[in-house]
C-alpha cells in the first residue's frame, strides 16, 4: 500500500465515523439511527482492516472481521428486531433541537482536537493524527445519552460511545490484545441484549419506552 493511499483510506474511514455520529444526532427516526450505527460499524471494521493491511498483521484482520460481525451486523439487527412497519413510525423527540444539537457536536469535535493535542500531542503517525475523532465520538455518545428520551435511542448513544472507545484504542495503540477485544465485544453485546429485554418489559409495564417515566425512585 502506498503512503498516500493509506492516508486517504484512514481519512475516509475516520471521516465516515465522524459523519455517521453527527447524522445520528441530527436524525430523529429510530430506523435511520440504527442504519447509521450499522454503517459506522462497517466503517470501523474497514479502518481496522486498512491498518492491519498496512502493518501486515493478521491479528488485526481477524479483529476487523469480529467487529464487522458484532458492530456492523449483529447489534443493529438486535436493535431493529421488530416489524419494519412499527419501527418506521418510531420518532424521537429529543430535548435539544437539531440546530443546537449539531452545533454542540461541532463544539465537542473542536474540544476533542484541543484536548488530544494538549494531552498527548497529535502524534507523527497518520493513525494517531486521527485520534481526536474517537474522542469526538465518545463525547457525541454522551450527548445522545443525555438528550434522548427513548430507551432504544439511549442504547444507540451507549453504542456510539463504545465505538468511540474502540476507535481511540485502534488509532492510538493499534488495538488492545485480541483476547480483550473479544471480551469487550461479548460484554457490549450482552449489555445491549439485557437492555433490549428491559425495553420490552418497559413497553409491557408502561405502554411505551419513554425513559422520563422512570422517576419513582428518588430522595
Amino acid at each position, binding site marked *: 500500500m502506498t503512503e498516500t493511499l493509506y492516508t486517504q483510506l484512514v481519512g475516509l474511514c475516520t471521516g465516515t465515523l465522524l459523519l455517521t455520529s453527527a447524522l445520528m444526532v441530527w436524525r430523529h427516526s429510530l430506523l435511520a439511527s440504527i442504519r447509521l450505527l450499522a454503517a459506522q460499524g462497517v466503517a470501523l471494521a474497514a479502518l481496522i482492516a486498512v491498518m492491519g493491511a498496512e502493518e501486515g498483521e493478521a491479528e488485526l484482520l481477524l479483529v476487523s472481521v469480529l467487529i464487522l460481525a458484532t458492530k456492523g451486523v449483529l447489534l443493529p439487527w438486535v436493535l431493529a428486531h421488530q416489524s419494519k412497519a412499527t419501527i418506521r413510525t418510531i420518532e424521537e423527540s429529543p430535548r435539544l433541537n437539531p440546530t443546537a444539537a449539531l452545533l454542540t457536536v461541532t463544539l465537542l469535535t473542536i474540544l476533542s482536537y484541543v484536548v488530544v493535542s494538549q*494531552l*498527548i500531542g497529535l502524534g507523527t503517525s497518520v493513525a494517531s493524527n486521527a485520534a481526536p475523532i474517537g474522542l469526538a465520538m*465518545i463525547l457525541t455518545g*454522551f450527548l445522545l*445519552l443525555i438528550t434522548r428520551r427513548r*430507551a432504544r435511542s*439511549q442504547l444507540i448513544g*451507549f453504542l456510539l*460511545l*463504545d465505538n468511540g*472507545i474502540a476507535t*481511540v*484504542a485502534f488509532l*492510538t*495503540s*493499534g488495538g*488492545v*490484545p485480541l*483476547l*480483550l477485544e473479544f*471480551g*469487550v465485544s461479548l*460484554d457490549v453485546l*450482552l*449489555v445491549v441484549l*439485557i*437492555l433490549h429485554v*428491559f425495553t420490552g*418489559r*418497559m413497553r409491557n*409495564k*408502561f405502554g411505551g419506552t419513554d*425513559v422520563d417515566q*422512570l*422517576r*419513582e*425512585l428518588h*430522595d
Partner: protein
Amino acid sequence: MEFALLTPLAIPVILAVLSLTIDSAQLRRYSPVASSAAVLVSGLLLIGPALERGGATSLSDLLRADALSSYMLAVVGAVGLVSTWGGISSVAASRGRTAGSYGALLSLFLAAMSLAVLADSIGLMWAAIEATTIATAFLVGHHRSRRSLEAAWKYVILGSVGVAIALLGIVLIYAASIDTDTPTLSWLVLSQSGLGLDPALVTAGGALAVLGFATKSGLAPMHSWLPDAHSQAPAPVSGLMSGVLLSVALYAILRIQTITNAVIGPDFLRVMLSIGGLLSLLVAASLLIRQRDYKRMLAYSSIEHMGLMAIGVAIGPAALPAVLLYILAHGLIKATLFVISGRILAVEGTPVIADVKHLLARRPGMAIPWLIAMSALIGFPPFSIFFAEVGIITAGWSVGMGGVVGAALVLLLVIFAALTRLTVGMTMGSPPESEPFVADRSAHGPRLPIILALVATASMAFIAEPVGTLLLQATAVLGGTN
C-alpha cells in the same frame, strides 16, 4: 496451589449450569451457598502460599494471586457466604419459574468477582467487572415491578457507561506502554518503575480508569444508581453488591493507583480520590438525615463507607492495612444488615422506617442482631469498622492530610447521629397498650451466618497472626511498606 486459582471460577460456573438445567428446588437453593463456600475455601488456600513465601501463585500470564488478591478472594467468599446463606430462598420460592436463573446468576456474579480480583491483566479485570454488571442486571430487576425495572435500567446504563470510561482509561494506559519493549496490560509489569511509560498518557488513562471504577464503586458524584439498585434488589443481591462489588471496584482503583504511582507519583490521584471521598460523605450525610426507607438507609451508608475507604486509598500505604480491614468488616456487616432487612421487609411488608416501630419489643429475634450490626456499622468498638476508621484517620493525620480527615470526621459525626436516630426509631419503645402483641422470637431465617459474621467482625481486628501479617503483606504488594 494452581488449582485454587481455577476453582473459584469453575465451581460457580458449573453450579450455575446445573441450577439452570436440573429442576431441583434443593439444588437451586443451595447452589449459590456452595459457590460462595468454594470461593472462600480457594481464597484461604491461596493465602497460605502468599504468606509463607511472600510470593504469588500464578497460572500462565492471566491469573495471579498475591497476598492482596487472595485476601480479596477470601473476602468475596466470606461476604458471599453470609449473603447467600443468610438470605437463602424458601422452598416455595425455589420452585418458582425464575428460581433457576436466580441461583445461576448469583453464582455467575461470584465467579465474575473472583475473576476480577485474580486477573493479572487490567484488561481482563475490566472485562470481569463489566461481567458483574451483566450478571446483576437481571438480579436487580428480579421482582419485575415498575420500581425494580427503573432501578435496573439506571444501574445498567450508568454502570456500563462508567465502566466504558474505565475501558478508555485502560486503552490509554496500554497506549502508553506501546513504545516500551513489551506492550502489555499486566499490572505486575506496568507497576514496575523505570519502564519508561509515557507520563501524559498514564495521567489521562489513570484518571479515566479511576473515574470509571469509582462509578462502579458508588463514589459521589457518580453514585446515583446505587441507592435505587440496592433498595430494589433482593436481599442477598444487595448484600453482595454493597458488601463486595463496591470493594472489588475499589480493588481495581488500588491496582490502577499502583501503576500511576510508579510513573507520575501519588499526588495526582490523591487529590481526585480525596474529593470523591469527601463528596460521598457529604451526599451520605445530607441524605441520611431525612431518610425514610431502611434499605436506602443502608445504601447511603455504603456510599459513606466507600467514601471513607477512598480517602484511605488517597492517604496511601500508611492507611492501606486499615482500608483492607475495612473492606472485610464493612462487607460482613453490610451483608448481615441487608439479609436482616430482607427478613424485616418480608415480615413487616413495608420498607418505610416510620411504619416499622417498636421492633425490639415486637420482634426481638430480628431486632437484636439488627441492633448489634447497626452499632458495628456506626463504628462502635470492638467491631473492626471502629479500628479501621481510627486507622485511616490517624494515618491521614500523620501524612499531613489533617484537613481532609478533619472534614471527614465532622461528616462522620453527622452520619453517626442520623443513623442512630433512624435505628432508635425502628427498634426502641413499646407499642401502645391498646395494641396487644405477642413477642416474635423467631429469626425468620438461618441464625448461624449472622452470628458468624458478627463474631468475625468483632474479633478480626485483634488477630495479629495471620490477619495482621496478611494485611501488611497485601500493602507491600501495592508498593508501600508502611
